[in-house]
C-alpha cells in the first residue's frame, strides 16, 4: 500500500519515496571495537555519495600512547597500501599548566608513502582516556582525481595532555577507493566506536 499525501507519494513498496527529505547525513555503518586488531569498512564506499564522514567515539587503545592509524584500499580490502601525501599540525596543553604548543607535526606526515597515516595521536590507555575525531573523505570513487581527506581529533594523551590534532592530504591515486582500515600503531583497539556516514 502506498501513502499519498497532498497528491505526493510519500511511501511505496516498503520504502520512503526518493523525494521525501530524510536528512543528508546518512548513517551507513557502525563498528564497535572489542580488543580488535583493526576495524575496516569494506562495503558501502562507492559513487552513491559525494563524500563520506567517519566519526570516532572514545577510541581506547590497549597499548599506552598508541596512535590510531588510517589506510585505504583500492581492491576491496585485500591490500591497504595507497600512496598518500599529507599535512599534520597540532596543539596541546598539559594538565599541569605551562606545557602548551601549536606547531607543525614533522614526522607524522607522509610524502608519497603507502604506510598507514597517523590520525588520533598518543592516546592514553588509562581507564578514562580515549580519543575522538571526525574524518571527511571526498569522492572516493572518482577515477579522475586524487582523493582528499580532512580530519580533526581530540585526545586524552598518554602524558596527560589535551591534544588537538589536524590531518589533511590526498590519496594519490586515480583508482577508486573502496575500503578503509583503522588500527592502532601498536596493540589493539581495546574499545571504541567508528561510524561511517554518507553525505547526499
Amino acid at each position, binding site marked *: 500500500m502506498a*501513502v499519498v*499525501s497532498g497528491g505526493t507519494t510519500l*511511501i511505496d513498496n516498503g520504502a520512503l519515496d526518493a523525494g521525501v527529505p*530524510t536528512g543528508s547525513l546518512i548513517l551507513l555503518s557502525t563498528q564497535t571495537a572489542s580488543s580488535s586488531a583493526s576495524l575496516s569498512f569494506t562495503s558501502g564506499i562507492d559513487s552513491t555519495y559525494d563524500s563520506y564522514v567517519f566519526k570516532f567515539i572514545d577510541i581506547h587503545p590497549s597499548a599506552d600512547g598508541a596512535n590510531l592509524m588510517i589506510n585505504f584500499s583500492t581492491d576491496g580490502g585485500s591490500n591497504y597500501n595507497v600512496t598518500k601525501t*599529507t599535512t599534520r599540525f597540532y596543539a596541546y596543553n598539559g594538565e599541569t599548566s605551562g606545557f602548551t604548543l601549536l606547531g607543525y607535526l614533522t614526522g607524522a606526515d607522509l610524502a608519497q608513502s603507502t604506510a598507514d597515516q597517523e590520525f588520533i595521536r598518543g592516546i592514553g590507555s588509562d581507564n578514562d582516556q580515549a580519543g575522538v575525531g571526525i574524518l571527511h573523505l571526498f*569522492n572516493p570513487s572518482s577515477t579522475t*582525481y586524487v582523493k*582528499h581527506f580532512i580530519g580533526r581529533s581530540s585526545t586524552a594523551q598518554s602524558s596527560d595532555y589535551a591534544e588537538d590534532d589536524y590531518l589533511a*592530504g590526498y590519496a594519490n591515486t586515480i583508482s577508486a577507493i573502496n575500503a578503509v582500515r583503522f588500527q592502532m600503531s601498536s596493540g589493539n583497539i581495546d574499545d571504541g566506536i567508528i561510524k561511517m556516514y554518507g553525505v547526499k
Partner: protein
Amino acid sequence: MGLISNGTTVFDNGAMASGFGGSMVFVSSATASSSASIEFSLGSYKEYKFFFVNIHPATDNTNLTFNFSTDSGSNYNVTKTSTFFMTYHDESDTSTTLEYHTPSDLAQSTSFQRLCLAVGNGSDESASGSMHLFNPSSTTFVKHWVSDLQAYDASDFTRNDRSAGYANTTSALTNIKFQMSSGNIDAGKILMFGIN
C-alpha cells in the same frame, strides 16, 4: 491526507512533518562545467554548510574564492574581515609549513575572500573541503563563516587552507558566489545544506 501514528502527525500535505528526518537538509547543488562562477541563494536556515568536491580550475595555480551579496546577487561586494592560515607539504618531502598567510586575509574589504590557494589544473588535481556560514539572514549580527579546504596544488604539494571571519553587515546576506581568482571553474561540484 495526513499520516498520523499514535497521535503524532508524521506526514501531511505531501511532506514529512517537522521533527522527522535528519537535521542537515540538502538545499541545492551545482556542478561546474567551464563555469565562470557558481552562485547560491541563501534563505533562513541558521546555519549553512557547503561541501566542495573536486573543484578543478581551468587555470593552473589559481585560488578558489567567494563573496556575498545583500541585493539578490546584483552586487557581490560585502565588507569582510577575516583570518587565514595554511599548512602544506610537498610530495618530495622537502618543505612543510604551518603559518598565518597575510595576503589571504581581509580587513574591512569588499574583495573576494580566498578559500583555497594555488589549486592545480593537472588532470588529477583539485580542491575539496567544507564551509559553514552562520545565520546569514540575521539583521542584527555580522555573519560568521569558517572554512577548511584541502588541495592538490599546482606545485605538487598537499595544502590545507583555513579561513574564518565575518561579513561586517547587519543586512541579510541573500546570495553567495564562488569563483576562481582567474579563469573558470572547469569542473567540480558544490553542495549546499541547511542545518536545522
